[in-house]
């Protein structure tokens, strides 16, 4: 009788463990840097690689707008996210996430700059020409797609920059901001240099079409931050797998698809420059309305 109870208990335990294991997955959010469909295509191999290496289902999910990310992170109970320079700081402050790794791009850099650009044929040459025009930002919660521009305008004596323009809007992604300017839906655009360079690489004519008015200092590019709820061991394993990817032939293939040389370690210190930028833009992170 005892033996029977023991066997049944063991079986129940076994099945519950299996079902728990089956349900456990790692969900990582992505901020919409570019065309979300293309971005998903880039990240998909990475999720498969992590699933294989961790032995745990790893899935990426697009966070539709920069502004949503903190809410959605909480709502969807994310384990981590690839954040931009500002969103990283925001998440560190609001959610206590920890920066883990960031990709090193094919050009060997792991930082990005923000550009303020116009169409070459727009007759806008400097900040004075921008008055009363339509400007397309990426999102309130991007350093390279909004905050650096805000700091730039403030540095140039414009106290209330948003009123300086006839219309402003947020495209939600860097390439949308570029396309908005190119399509004439906006006169001025603000976006991350890397996305612009990518587009120019694909369509070199674009080089002749746009004119860069201002650029930011180098800011930490998209960074994987992991939730504080993930135990240290798993965190270390994820960090380890990503840092050693370039040593693994399979990993190299994934990196190639992803468009990076390798992953490098990231830390909170990398983001002091972002805090400086926020100060220049008169943004108090704790009260900042990023939505």
């Amino acid at each position, binding site marked *: 009788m005892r033996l029977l109870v023991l066997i049944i208990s063991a079986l129940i335990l076994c099945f519950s463990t299996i079902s728990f294991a089956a349900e456990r997955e790692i969900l990582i959010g992505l901020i919409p840097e570019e065309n979300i*469909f293309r971005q*998903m295509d880039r990240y998909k191999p990475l999720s498969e690689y992590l699933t294989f290496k961790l032995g745990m289902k790893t899935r990426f999910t697009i966070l*539709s707008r920069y502004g949503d990310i903190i809410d959605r992170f909480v709502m969807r109970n994310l384990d981590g996210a690839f954040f931009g320079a500002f969103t990283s700081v925001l998440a560190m402050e609001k959610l206590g996430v920890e920066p883990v790794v960031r990709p090193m791009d094919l050009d060997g850099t792991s930082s990005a700059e923000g550009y303020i650009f116009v169409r070459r044929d727009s007759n806008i040459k400097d900040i004075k020409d921008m008055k009363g025009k339509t400007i397309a930002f990426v*999102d309130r919660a991007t350093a390279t797609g909004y905050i650096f521009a805000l700091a730039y305008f403030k540095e140039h004596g414009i106290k209330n920059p948003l009123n300086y323009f006839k219309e402003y809007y947020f495209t*939600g992604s860097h*390439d949308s901001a570029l396309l908005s300017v190119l399509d004439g839906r906006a006169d001025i655009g603000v976006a991350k240099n890397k996305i612009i360079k990518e587009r120019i690489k694909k369509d070199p004519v674009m080089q002749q079409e746009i004119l860069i008015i201002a650029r930011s200092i180098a800011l930490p590019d998209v960074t994987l931050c992991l939730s504080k709820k993930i135990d240290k061991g798993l965190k270390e394993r994820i960090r380890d797998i990503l840092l050693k990817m370039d040593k693994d032939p399979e990993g190299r293939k994934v990196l190639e698809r992803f468009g990076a040389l390798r992953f490098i370690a990231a830390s909170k210190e990398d983001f002091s420059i972002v805090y400086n930028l926020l100060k220049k833009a008169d943004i108090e992170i704790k009260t900042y309305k990023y939505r």
Partner: protein
Amino acid sequence: MKKRLIISMALLFLLFSTGVGITIYYIYKTTTDLETVISLHRVEIIRQNLVINTQTVQTHLYTIGTAFGSELDVIVEHVSDLDRSVQSCKSCHHSKELTEKLNRVSDMVEQYKDALSALITTTANRERIERLRLVAITLGNTLLSMVQEMAFTADQRLYAKTVKALKDINNSKIILFLTLSFAFFAALTVAIVFTKQITKSMGILINATKELKAGKLGVTASYPYRDEFRDLSEAFNDMSITLKKNHDELLGFTKRLSHLYRATIPLYSLSEEGMPYNELIGVVKELFDATDCRIFIRDNERFLDIAGKEIILPEKEIEALHLYYRKEPAIFTLGSAPSIKTSFFDSINEPSLLIWIKEQERLSGLLIVMNKKHGSFDDTDLSIAAILSNLLSVSFMNVKLMEDLRNRMRELQQTQEQLIQAAKLAALGEMASNIAHELNNPLTSIIGFSELSQEESDIETIKKDLKIIEQESLRAKEIVNQLLEFARKRAINIVEVNINLLLSEILKLASLQLKHSDIDVIEEFGQVPIIQADHNQLKQVFLNLINNSIHAMEKGGTLVLRTGIMDNANIYVDVEDTGHGIPPDILPRIFEPFFTTKKEKGTGLGLSISYRIIEGHNGRIDVHSEVNKGTRFRVILPVRQPSLQVSHQQSQDQSL
């Protein structure tokens, strides 16, 4: 048949191979067609997916940003599906026109994706958002119509291809069916034809085998076709004929062996008449299957024909012939053997068999077997002739030995008769001498006393002399009486006798004699049955034996009278003494008449009379004696006298 079988099999194989080839070709063609149709269907599915995905994404467009909007991941997934559908369309080989169309679709999809992404990610005022939505919807609709148009065109092509593939499949089915049916019926026909032929051929052979098995040796199978079975049938026929031949030969041998055996019977059944020549001639003729046989036996210097004796063959000529044939049986042909002058041989026209009869190494006869009924004499005949020659030789020797034996026996009998006659005469002489001697003594006394009384005057003296003469005359008379008694054949009067009682009675009679002697008498009477005998004669025998014993023990001794059962049918009576015994040289003669050792006391006729009495009772007397130790007479008598009439008188009433 082998050749036909090989050709048929080869043709069948060719037919099957062709069928298989055609089948494989059609299967290949059909499979290829089907593969094309399937791939086209797959493409069709891809196109339909493209349409569905585009339509799905289009639906999302209306709900994005509203409470009914799908999760972004779902939208992303659908757009990815749409993208994949387009990419898979492009990955196939297409005509230039179609490739261009697909490129346009692909570009359109890219634009659509940009517009979608912009709509999804943009945060702006309502008007801008609606403008972005409109752009995306317009692009989506254009894409949808392009894809649907393409799907319709492809659909038509697919239909045409499917119809063609189905038609091909149908055609190949018919061809396959025809090919297989033809091959099957061809194989069936070949199988039936060959099976029939083989069964028929086997049937002929099986029937012949059955007949052979049933004992019809020499049966042959007549096989009408020219094939392997003909060889088999011929081999069978040869076997059957050989079997019959061997069987017949075997039967012939058995028959001849039987004749040979029969021939030996007269040779061994010797009789007073000597060799049964006529019977011998008969079996020899049978043995060699001949019509004529003659036997010649050596008589002095010639060989005489046993049948008629009219043919005489000179010894020298026959001996020469015997040597010429190296003393072996031979087949004689006129002219073949040299130095034949006798006219008898001229009459022998055909080869004849010569069989020699020998006594040890000497030629004693000749058997000539002539005129073989079927064929001529051969080696087998010679072998049998050799056996017969040996048998005849042995038999002739046996005949001679028998004759010799008979002659010797006759001579022996004659000699024996002569000897018996001589012995009889000698015994008679001795008896006469004994009688003469016995009578001579009283006669001498009588003559002497007669002469004395003639010269004597004294009457008393004369009376005395006359008394002596009387006594001596009486003595002579007694001798004559005994002689008469011996010669007389007395009738036996058989009664039932108690032998123990008889012996006691005799001892009483002898008691006076025994009283004056120093003899102890011991009676050892056993339980003996009453016997059938002549009471008086037995009394005479035992009284005589007891008297003899008393005389043998003059200085005293022991007399034992013993009776007992000898066997189921006989009893015995022993009269045993411890007297002087009988010397061995005398012992064989004691039962002879007038033989005595007692001189004055006996006539020498007692024992011989006793012997005759006991012999008359079908009994016998055994004597065992050792000098100076004693003698035992054992009288053995049968209990019953089967051949004699028994007189039912009590023996006790009888007296001597």
